[in-house]
């Protein structure tokens, strides 16, 4: 059984709850715990109600529980708003001396046997002659003592942060000692028991999805980055910019998203690897460029970080609402590839893959992420740097081969799989035009019907070639808490088949291995490659499943719509969430448990009218 503890820090934006969260997270990780950090904050700089939650375990945890063991309230709003989230025997740490709990909260304290501690921050600070910002260190040190963590570890963490400022460092160390030694006059020594640590985690990285993606991009050979600030893509831009003096990349904060898209397209045309990232609103502006790149067969990679729309929507909250945008963006018909990252692991792994696909197929690859992934803090095993390869497809660089090229090789309509040779400006070879008008094989404008047909078929052939090479969706199976094989054979029957994508993977894996569900045979089919959409596996599994449910963070069930469009499989049972929040651990668990409590069986119907799968795919139904 996975033993998990949740710690939530609440207060106003700008009060420093992120720094408490970050330092506690690092301390716990170094002590041998897997930590998953989740932030909620409003779209403003100071004030508003914000939170930073850490879910901690000695096994992998990648989700957030709505019920917490420890609540740290940096202001009285936290006491009013978040107290009911405490679990029985939970700890409430607050900093508002003389706070009178209203009657219903007094009742709550009694019923749940909550332990309430008021830390006299102001008194301690004035005694030490420390500024208000150091209250974070005091509280962190108190939490440290509560979890029974080694005080020297905290001192070294504080030292890392203030190594250059001697005076500050000394004061910080004194705050650590004060906070660590503090005893509540009523409650006395408070401890929160953590499970036995697993030392493997101590060497792991604590990393956000944005940072993982940034590292993946650098690993993939990205040398040019252009972007325009837009949450939740901005952390990636900041991370890449902060690294620029070490990576020696060209980093450009563009004047708008169109510029960013054009800038990286120019850089890719010239032959480097270039990346841009934006959110839905910015991607709207980039869509014309996506269409252009399809016509000139220019490999490009766009990161689309999703947040709820339409319009400015909920700027700092999460969604999976832009799948159909990614799949359909840009005018005209053309091949593109849409992927979505799910955790800090594939946020890294998919960057080299995205660039390889872009260059191999000479298409745009749209890598989706979500605010939830972009800002969540993952405990991540150090990345395997051997795994990725740089594959550049039919890029010609050999001088002899370059000499043999003709201009008409560039967009040769007879190229195998629709993928023609590509070579770069500056190389001694026949030249061509990357032509945005319909063109012949060398990029010369042609409006002839026969050429238009040939070139459209050439470009679209790449879609079919791509579809036949993309990996199938990833299958997680569990029975009695054991991870099953990735293959379900003819005789197997699945009790519940769950289909999802993006950040659902992390929470779904946690839920599958929960005490409550481990006795059931559950399969989770996770889509990483969302377009072109491979449906053979979902059809095969749906056939063997008693019940199928779609889990998505949008209103329409957009992946479900694509599945139905592609193969006719209509998943009628949907768990959809579109309030800006991710799926929480206990929430998804409850929703899935309800699927076992029900009696109706016919959750899957096949719409013959919409059946468009190949003969082989239909045979699986």
């Amino acid at each position, binding site marked *: 059984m996975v033993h998990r503890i949740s710690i939530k820090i609440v207060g106003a934006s700008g009060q420093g709850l992120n720094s408490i969260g970050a330092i506690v997270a690092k301390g716990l990780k170094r002590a041998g715990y897997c930590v998953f950090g989740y932030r909620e904050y409003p779209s403003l700089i100071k004030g508003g109600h914000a939170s930073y939650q850490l879910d901690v375990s000695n096994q992998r945890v990648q989700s957030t529980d709505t019920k917490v063991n420890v609540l740290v309230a940096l202001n009285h709003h936290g006491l009013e708003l978040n107290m009911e989230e405490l679990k029985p025997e939970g700890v409430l740490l607050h900093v508002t001396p003389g706070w009178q709990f209203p009657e219903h909260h007094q009742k709550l304290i009694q019923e749940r046997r909550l332990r309430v501690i008021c830390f006299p921050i102001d008194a301690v600070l004035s005694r030490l002659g420390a500024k208000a910002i150091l209250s974070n260190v005091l509280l962190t040190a108190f939490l440290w003592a509560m979890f029974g963590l080694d005080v020297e570890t905290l001192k070294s963490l504080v030292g890392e942060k203030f190594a250059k400022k001697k005076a500050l460092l000394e004061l910080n160390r004194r705050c650590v000692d004060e906070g660590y030694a503090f005893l509540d006059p009523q409650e006395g020594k408070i401890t929160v028991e953590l499970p036995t640590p697993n030392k493997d985690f101590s060497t792991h990285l604590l990393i956000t999805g944005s940072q993982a993606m940034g590292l993946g991009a650098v690993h993939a050979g990205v040398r040019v980055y252009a972007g325009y600030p837009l949450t939740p893509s901005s952390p990636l831009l900041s991370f890449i910019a902060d690294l620029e003096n070490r990576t020696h990349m060209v980093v450009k904060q563009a004047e708008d998203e169109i510029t960013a898209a054009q800038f990286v397209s*120019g850089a890719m045309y010239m032959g480097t690897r270039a990346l841009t990232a934006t959110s839905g609103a910015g991607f709207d502006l980039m869509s014309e460029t996506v269409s252009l790149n399809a016509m000139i067969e220019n490999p490009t990679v766009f990161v689309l970080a999703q947040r709820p729309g339409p319009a400015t929507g909920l700027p700092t909250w999460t969604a999976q609402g832009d799948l159909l945008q990614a799949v359909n963006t840009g005018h005209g018909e053309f091949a593109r590839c849409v992927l979505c990252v799910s955790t800090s692991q594939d946020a890294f792994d998919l960057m080299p893959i995205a660039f390889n696909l872009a260059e191999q197929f000479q298409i745009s690859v749209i890598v989706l992420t979500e605010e939830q992934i972009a800002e969540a803090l993952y405990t991540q095993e150090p990345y395997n740097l051997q795994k990725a390869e740089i594959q550049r497809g039919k890029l010609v660089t050999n001088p002899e081969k370059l000499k043999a090229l003709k201009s008409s090789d560039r967009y040769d309509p007879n190229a195998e799989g629709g993928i023609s040779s590509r070579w770069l400006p500056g190389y001694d070879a026949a030249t061509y035009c990357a032509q945005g008008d319909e063109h012949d094989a*060398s990029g010369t404008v042609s409006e002839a019907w026969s050429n238009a047909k040939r070139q459209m078929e050439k470009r679209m052939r790449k879609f079919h070639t791509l579809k036949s090479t993309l990996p199938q969706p990833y299958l997680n199976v569990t029975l009695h808490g054991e991870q099953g094989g990735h293959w379900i054979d003819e005789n197997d029957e699945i009790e519940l088949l769950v289909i999802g994508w993006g950040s659902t993977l992390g929470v779904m894996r946690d839920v599958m291995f929960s005490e409550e569900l481990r006795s059931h045979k559950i399969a989770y089919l996770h889509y990483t490659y969302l377009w072109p959409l491979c449906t053979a596996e979902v059809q095969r599994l749906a056939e063997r499943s008693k019940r199928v449910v779609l889990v998505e963070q949008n209103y329409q069930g957009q992946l479900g719509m694509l599945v139905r469009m592609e193969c006719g499989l209509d998943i009628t049972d949907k768990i959809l969430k579109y309030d800006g929040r991710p799926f929480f651990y206990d929430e998804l668990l409850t929703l899935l448990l309800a699927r076992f409590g029900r009696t109706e069986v016919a959750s899957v119907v096949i719409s013959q009218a919409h059946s468009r799968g190949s003969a082989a795919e239909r045979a699986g139904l």
Partner: protein
Amino acid sequence: MSVAPRITQSALSEYYSETQCNWCDGCGNYGIWTAVKYALTDLNLHPWQVCLCYDVGCHGNGSDKLQGYRFHGLHGRVIPFAAGAKLANTRLPVIAFGGDGGTFSEGIGHLVHGVRSNYPITFILHNNGNFGLTTGQASSLTWQDHPMNTSPNGISERTLASMDVIFALNPTFVARGFSGDIKLMTRILKAAIQHRGFAFVDVLQACPTYNHFATHQYLLDKYFDVNAAGHDSGDLPGAKALAAQDQDRIACGILYQREDIPDFYERLTPRRGLETTCVEEVRKYDVSEYWREFV
């Protein structure tokens, strides 16, 4: 990869394309197209050693009428594409072409930031005072009181003072050519291509079909070469005054140039001291040193 000069001299014939020109008789594009080829040949650049980026408009239809690594993109967006291309491989001269429609209407933001950024590229404005390819609508550089397609009573807006806009951006190279003087244009283009930063070249061009105000004859009668007349291209107030004057005589030539301002790439701290280009640097990178702070 290198763009090291070859022993063989570049020849005009290398730029020959079998694709026939399809501009109107008397179109200024013929002159600009010819001057570009002369300038590249004079600089001993072979077609594989240049990157030519075209915006959308009548000039863009020239993208397949010569050799060179070419690109023909979206309306108004050519400058950021050309900038991205150039910064990826600074060894290659990158020339961007745009019309007055795309450049001063849809894409004016890109022009502003292009000049401000001082990207090391050349920008050639095909300035025929209207949207030619969409059949003669007014651009923001069309004169008032001239009926145009979709503005039969003339434009209600005021004509944009394009040179005032450019000079407000602290440019490092401003020149003006005339499509009827290929020799002058060639001289300007050679200097522009060799310029340290963003070279803005305004070429006044005849549009015999739709522009009935600034005609070839009108421009021919009024233009003169300021450099031959003794103008010092380092003289900013003089350059501004010459650029603004368009009533009696039209000042052409290199109006303004300064070479002491570093271009955008030179100002990129992370690139200082590097001999390689971003194109050459594509490989797998060990990023473990960057994740140490996360442990």
